């Protein structure tokens, strides 16, 4: 019986110590308020091809405590108070929950003490926005279902309004996954390539493998494409090993710039956008939150 008594003592001490460590850990890892990850989003709207209001869907990701059952009920953008953007964590065609009733499961992917949450936003732009105009959003005022509000730096979301894009190159086909896309175009007249453009290209340059007709995208300047030939763009975004870069959500719409036979310079969208978000584990989230000074 003495052995049993020893097992009991050791067991109870072990459980008690682990419970205390657990409580201390839980309070140390607890977020005072949710943390929005960095978003780098560029979207073009072409008036000639879209009817008013021109809608653009954007996803916004944030990290909350895994026990946080509040949901985002509204998002305002202090830099653009006129923007009224429906926001929901249940999808745009789902439920716009303002209050959770305890029965409904809180959305989000739980990783340890945290949950990665997605807010679905639907921007709608009417005729007030003029050709050549741009909107940049870097800050969001996020309203939660319990009435609390927090302001967060969200990276940079840019919308550009243009009348139309070049028709010199015609889209043929596109395929791809979250990480890799292959897009093909056919050229109507002889062109000389200038380069690939994206506002946030520098952010992913080191992790981007992109080839235009088999050639590195940084070396395509001066490449001549004859009329009737194809342009094939293969791009692959590698996952970054740097903590800060892992938590960047990218939604880019790269454009191809070229010079026509008559010397005019034009750009055309490469159609397939680059959407890039990595999956995170508990330790990576912890590292990111430490980096952001949230813990």
């Amino acid at each position: 019986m003495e052995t049993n008594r020893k097992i009991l003592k050791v067991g109870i001490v072990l459980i008690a110590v682990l419970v205390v460590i657990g409580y201390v850990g839980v309070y140390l890892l607890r977020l005072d308020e949710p943390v929005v990850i960095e978003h780098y989003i560029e979207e073009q709207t072409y008036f000639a091809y879209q009817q008013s209001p021109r809608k653009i869907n954007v996803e916004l990701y944030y990290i909350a405590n895994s026990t946080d059952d509040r949901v985002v009920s509204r998002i305002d953008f202090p830099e653009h108070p006129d923007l009224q953007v429906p926001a929901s964590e249940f999808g745009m065609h789902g439920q716009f929950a303002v209050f959770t009733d305890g029965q409904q499961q809180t959305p989000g992917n739980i990783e340890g003490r945290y949950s990665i949450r997605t807010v679905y936003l639907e921007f709608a732009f009417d005729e007030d926005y003029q050709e050549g105009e741009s909107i940049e959003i870097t800050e969001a005022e996020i309203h939660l279902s319990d009435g609390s509000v927090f302001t967060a730096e969200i990276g940079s979301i840019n919308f550009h309004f243009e009348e139309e894009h070049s028709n010199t190159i015609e889209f043929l086909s596109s395929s791809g996954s979250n990480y890799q896309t292959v897009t093909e175009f056919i050229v109507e007249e002889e062109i000389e390539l200038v380069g690939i453009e994206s506002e946030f290209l520098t952010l992913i340059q080191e992790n981007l493998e992109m080839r235009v007709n088999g050639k590195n995208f940084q070396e395509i300047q001066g490449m001549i494409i004859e009329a009737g030939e194809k342009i094939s763009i293969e791009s692959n975004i590698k996952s970054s090993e740097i903590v800060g870069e892992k938590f960047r959500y990218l939604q880019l719409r790269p454009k191809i710039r070229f010079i026509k036979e008559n010397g005019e310079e034009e750009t055309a969208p490469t159609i397939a956008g680059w959407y890039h978000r990595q999956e995170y584990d508990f330790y990576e989230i912890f590292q990111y939150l430490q980096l952001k000074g949230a813990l």
Partner: protein
Amino acid sequence: MDRGYQKIFWGLIFVTFHLNLGPLRLLPPFVGWLILISGLHELTSRFQNSSISIESFQRAISFGKVLVALTLVDTIGTLVAGGALMESLVFLYYPIIVIMLEIIIFFYILEGTYKVFSELSFEERKVETQKKLRTYMVMGISSAVILIFTLFFNHTGTMVIGVLLGIVAVIYLLVYFSQLKKFWEQDPLGKPIDVENKLW
């Protein structure tokens, strides 16, 4: 004796397995603990004025009362706050504290049983009780440790292992309490036990 173990058996069933009517739990766990305590009272009263030590059973009763209080707060809290109270971070390790107290209670119940067998010179039963207690404690403590990590990391896979191990530990105890009940029911030596005069 047999009625005491029977009540402990049913008490343990009611605290472990839930019977719900919609959101309402028909037999809240504190009722199970009360039944179990009542069984322990039967055991202590049986040996009250004998040379057999009832100290272990009395300790089990004391810890049982703590669990009655805790589970009563849990039940009222759940009724009033609709579960939100128990889901708060303060109560994160509440289930572990309950498991810890359970392990202590069953340690004392089986230690008391061991002492009874020891005093009455049921050697085989004494050794068996000791072994059963050891196996139960190893399973119970392992289950608690796994669940501590599970609750911290929100890991479903390990939660299943921890919960299953806990259920196996409880079933293991239930089987033994059922055997103990039958043992005393069958009148082990063919005549009534007179503990006071050590006649059996």
